[in-house]
């Protein structure tokens, strides 16, 4: 279990590193989505239970709801991650379309060149 947390934190750290060090706009967008994926992994790991069952009450569990509750994984993080994935796809699509426009205007994706708004 703790390996999941470690990997999630590593993904967030790698994404931050990418944001700080890389100069290419596409790579920055990749960095952003790596950060978000790391957080998603962390969130889904919180609700995970090894040897757990899907959190859907079937007829087999109707007479043993307590046993079901003891074994089922937490459904809330999964719902949250689904929502969050949709949001991050929106951000990703917007970011890439902006990158296309930036390339048209500036002829480059180097963010160091994108600095005409200085004063």
């Amino acid at each position, binding site marked *: 279990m703790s390996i999941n947390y470690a990997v999630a934190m590593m993904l967030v750290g790698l994404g931050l590193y990418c944001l700080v060090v890389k100069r290419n706009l596409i790579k920055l967008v990749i960095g952003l989505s790596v950060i978000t994926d790391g957080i998603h992994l962390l969130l889904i790991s919180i609700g995970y239970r090894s040897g757990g069952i899907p959190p859907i009450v079937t007829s087999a569990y109707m007479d043993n709801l307590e046993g079901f509750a003891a074994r089922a994984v937490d459904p809330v993080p999964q719902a949250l991650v689904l929502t969050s994935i949709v949001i991050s796809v929106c951000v990703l699509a917007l970011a890439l379309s902006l990158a296309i426009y930036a390339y048209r205007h500036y002829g480059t994706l180097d963010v160091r060149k*994108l600095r005409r708004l200085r004063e």
Partner: protein
Amino acid sequence: MADSVVFGPGFWGPIIATASMLLIAGAGYLLILASRRISPRRPTSEKLTTYACGEDVSPSQTRPDAEFFFSPIRRVFRPFYRYIGAKHTGELSLYVWWVLIGALVLVVLTAHGLGVL
């Protein structure tokens, strides 16, 4: 501690603040008048024209530089503009750097605020 501010009369209330601001404005105007007595204004048409490099420039063609509008204040706060103002370069990775540095500082300050450190 007061539960709520009362904007009534009182020492150094808004009324007095307004009155003293008007008073000081009046005093400043008197100073200007007094200075006129010492060195009176003698405008001549030559003094009022704008010129550069020996040629007259029509006033509608002159452009002040807005950045240097307050150059005295710039001189007073020179360290700020040299070290912090100069950081506003518009470079994106610098923005992200500052977010991370700010986050690290905030961790320490928050820990201190919550009484952990």
